[in-house]
């Protein structure tokens, strides 16, 4: 049996709070969001990893040219 997803609804005029099941539309939206976010997050992580790899590669090349590690790191900042 699948879990019933619920939300806390707070009526800001009356102060009333209710725990209600998500609507079918809200459940569908969550599923679509999760799929879209997974793609976006993978893109973000890939971009961050590529930037980190490029930086490391650049530092390695600067070291090979004879710069000290401190100088290479300063240039790569």
């Amino acid at each position, binding site marked *: 049996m699948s879990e019933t*997803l*619920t*939300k*806390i*609804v*707070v*009526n*800001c*005029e*009356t*102060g009333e*709070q209710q*725990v209600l099941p*998500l609507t079918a*539309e*809200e459940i569908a*939206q*969550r599923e*679509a*969001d*999760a799929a*879209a*976010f997974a793609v*976006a*997050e993978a*893109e*973000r992580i890939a*971009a*961050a*990893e590529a*930037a*980190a790899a490029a930086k490391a590669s650049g530092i390695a090349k600067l070291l090979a040219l004879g710069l000290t590690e401190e100088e290479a790191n300063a240039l790569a900042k």
Partner: protein
Amino acid sequence: MALTYTAIATTTVGSGGSAAFDFTSIPSTYTDLQILLSARSADAVFLRAVNVQFNGSSSSIYSYKQLYGFSGGAGSFGETNIANTFVGQMPGTSATVSTFSNVSLYIPNYAGSTNKSMSVDSAPEINSSTNWQLDLTANLWSNTSAINRVYIYPGSGNFAQYSTATLYGIKNTV
């Protein structure tokens, strides 16, 4: 400038968890809104995204630009014309036990007749040198309606017990 700061409503997740905080019937009598969110995901992840929709709208008219820092570096990311807007991250059950996020959402001129912007800062309390992420986010809802409902929900799964959301109304007059 904020001259008065009123807690309109606050709510805390009970033992069963909750898939969303839904602030409805928000009065239009304030200048700005702020939401402070202390949240944890009930899922076995280190970090889980938190999203927001306004007025029940899932139209693809939300955009955001995010500056982030995490254990592997820093950078920026953004999306346009999507059906919700990202506001930050919260720790899940794979992170340090009993740690929560600290997310602050500020919505200026929420009852005005222009498109609605929002600024967010988010810092999960991970207590670890890895798997952490800080976010500063600029958000836009391309809709001129007054905001009367704020729907806050995880990218997946539930908010864990003791997650809390508080909605404040801010006035620039006494």
